[in-house]
C-alpha cells in the first residue's frame, strides 16, 4: 500500500499495483523515496479521489481484455469524463503532474470532442476566455479560411 497526501492534508491509501500506473510515483517507488506518505502539493483531495477512482478501475487493464470486460471499462471511462470543465481540467493537470498517460489521453480527447464543433463564441464562454483580439485581427483570421467558420455542424451552445 502507498499513502498519498493531497494539498489539503488528506491521506489516501492506494494499492501499489494501482498507483504505479503513474510514471512519477512508479519512479519514486523504484528510487526508494516512497517509504512514507507521498505529498502531492498540486492536487486537491476532490481531484485526487477522482484520480484514485480511475486508477483502481484500471488496475487490471491487461486482464480486462482477456475477460471481456473491455466494454465495462469503456462505459466507466465515458461516465468518468462526464464532469464540468473545471473539474476536467483539474484532472488533466493532476494526470499531467502524476504522468498517467492513459488518463491524460482520455481527458484530453474528451475535452477535444467537446470543443470540436463549437463556435468561437461558445468556446470562449465555456472556457471563460476573454477575447483579446481586435476586430481587424479576427476578420483577418476569418478571411484566411472562411470555410472553417461556416457550416451546419457548428454549435453555438455552451453545454
Amino acid at each position, binding site marked *: 500500500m502507498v499513502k498519498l497526501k493531497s494539498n489539503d492534508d488528506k491521506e489516501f491509501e492506494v494499492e501499489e499495483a494501482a498507483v504505479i500506473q503513474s510514471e512519477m510515483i512508479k519512479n519514486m517507488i523504484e528510487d526508494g523515496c516512497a517509504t512514507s506518505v507521498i505529498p502531492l502539493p498540486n492536487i486537491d483531495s476532490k481531484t485526487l479521489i477522482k484520480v484514485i477512482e480511475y486508477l483502481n478501475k484500471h488496475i487490471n487493464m491487461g486482464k480486462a481484455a482477456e475477460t471481456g470486460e473491455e466494454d465495462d471499462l469503456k462505459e466507466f471511462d465515458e461516465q468518468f469524463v462526464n464532469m464540468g470543465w473545471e473539474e476536467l*481540467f483539474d484532472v488533466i*493537470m493532476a494526470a*499531467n503532474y502524476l504522468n498517467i498517460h492513459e488518463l491524460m489521453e482520455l481527458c*484530453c480527447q474528451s475535452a*477535444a470532442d467537446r*470543443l470540436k464543433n463549437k463556435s468561437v463564441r461558445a468556446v470562449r464562454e465555456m472556457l*471563460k*476566455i476573454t477575447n483579446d483580439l481586435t476586430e481587424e485581427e479576427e476578420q483577418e*483570421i476569418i478571411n*484566411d479560411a472562411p470555410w472553417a467558420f461556416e457550416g451546419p455542424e457548428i454549435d453555438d451552445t455552451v453545454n
Partner: protein
Amino acid sequence: MSAKVLKRKHFQIENRMEATGIHLPEQIVEEILSRLPLRSLLRFKCVSKIWEALISDPYFHKMMMHQSPDSNSQKLLIRKMFGDTAPSRFKFYSSSLSTFEDVQQLDPPLTHYVGRYHIFSSFDGLVLLAADTQLFLWNPLTRETVLLPYTEYNIIYTSFGLGYDDATDGYKILKLNMRLKHSMEILNLKTGFWREICNHPTAVCPRTGYEMELFPLPSKHIPMEPLVYVHGAFHWIGDLMLWAMKDYGVEESWIVLCTLQFNGLAIAQPRYRFPDRELLLYAPGESPHQFGIPGIVEVENISYDVELISALVKRWRPETHTFYLRIGWEPPLDCFCGIRIILVSKLAAYVKELDDINDDTPEIEVQRRVRLYLLWLCGGTLFSDKFNSKISLDYLIEMQDLNAMSTKAWGTRYMFKYTSCLYRASTSSSNDICGFLVLVQVLWAWKRIIPLQPVPHPLGANHYEALAPLARKWRRGIAHENEARNILFIIRDVLNDLTIEQFIWEPYSEEIRNELPVWCYRGEPIWMARAMRYEIIYRMAQLILRDPRATSEMYEFASEVAREGGRRRSTRPLMSTYCGTGSLHDHVEG
C-alpha cells in the same frame, strides 16, 4: 506527457485562462488542440491571442503531422472529368479508404479556368498537381496552393514524385524524364532550385542476366504514372514488379518489394500501401483508349472532297506505294506516327453510348458496346471494302479477345489496307475506291500540300487541344477561301505545279509528337522498322528485275536486294505477330 522533451520557443504572452482559476499551461492546451480536426483549429485561432499563437506555431504543425495517422484520416483523392462546367471540367473528391460511402466534393484547387488537371503524386496530405503547364502543390484540407518553380515537362514522358527527406528536413520533388535522354532531377522546396542527379538505379534482369537501368514503367505502352512516396521511399510498378527506392540517389537502395501476378491486367498502378502490407492498385478498365482509337472519336466527321481524292489517286505509284509529285517522292514512312490519331468516325451515336459507360455499368454491357463500336469501326470505316461494308472474318477473329486485340498494331495494319486500296484504284480499270479515304484527304493532302489546305477557325479563348488529334483543328470549322478544291483540273494543276515551298515534309514536328498521347506510339517500332520499308524496296526490286528496260546497273542493284530478301524473309513472321493473322502479306500483294 511530461516525459516528452519539448524544444521550442516560449511565448512571451502571459499564458493564463482568465478569471476562473483554471490555469492551463500552454503545453496542455496544445495537447487538447492537437486532437482537433483542422477545420476546428482554423476556427479557434479566433478564440484569443494565445490560441492563435499556439495554432500558428510551426512546432505545433509538426507535432500534428507526426501523430500516427489512423485509417479514418487517410483519404483517397479522386479526379473526375465532366462536360463543360465552370471553372474547370475537372472535379475533385475525397473518399475514405475503408468505405466507399463517405465521398465528399472538394473545392477546386484554383479558381481560374484550367483546361486539364493532372495529379502526379501525393504525400503528407499534400498533392502535386499540374494545371495545364503549371506545377503546384495543393493542400486539399486547408485549400492552400503554392506554385512551384517552372520546369519544362510533358505529361506523357515525365513523372513527378513528392517526398519528404528526413536528412534535410524538407519536402523534395523528384522529376523523371523518359523522353529521349532519361534524366532525373530533384527540386528542393527549401532552396527552390531544380538539380539534376546522375546516378540511376540498376538491377540485374532475371531473364537475360544483363544489368539494366531502372525507371518507372520503362515501356511506351503504359502511360507514365505517379511515383508513390510511402515508408520513406518512392514506389512504382515496372515490368510487373513493385520497386521501391529506399533513399535518393543511392543505387543499392532500389529493392523489389514483390512480384505481382496479373490475369490479363495490362495496366495496374500502385496507389496506396496499407500498413498491413496490402496494396491498393488501380487498373483502368477496357476503353476505346486501350485500342488506340480515341483519335477517331475526337476527329469525327470530315466530308470528302471527291475531286481531290481522284487527283491524288492518279498520282499514286503502285511500284513504290507512294504518291509521285514533281518535287520528289512522298516522305518516307516514318511520318506515320499520326496514323492512330488522324482517323475519323461518323459514329457519333455509338460514341455517345460509349460515353454513358460508367463505373456501375456491368462488364458484359461495356464489352458489348465496345465490340459494337469496334465492328462499326473496322467494318464500316477502317477496313471497308466495295461490297456493302461486310467485315472480313480476319478482323472478327481478332475481336474474340479484346485484350489481345488491343496489343496488335492496328495503325500499321491499316496502312497496308490503305496502300492496297490505292494500289487497286490506280492500277485496275476500276472506277471505285474504298478504304478510309479521310486519311488520303486530311493526313496526306491537307496536312502537307499548302495550296490544298483549308484554314481552320482559330482556337477559342477557353479551348485546349494539346492532346487532341492534329486533324481535329479542321473540325472547328473551315474557311474555304484560299485552297483549291472540288474542281478536278484545278487540283491537278496544283499538283502538277507544286513547288518545294508549298509542301510540308514533316507535319508532325517533334513538338507535336511530344504532345501526342502514348497510345499514338504503340506499334511505332513496327512502322519505323526497316522491315516495312524493306517490303517496298523488295517489291521495287522484283519489278525492276522483270522490266526489260532496266539498265545493267539497276539490274545489279535489284538482284542484290532480291537476294538479300531471300535471307531476310525471317523478318516476316515477326511482322505477322504484330499485325495479327497472316493476312499482312496478302494486303501488300494487293
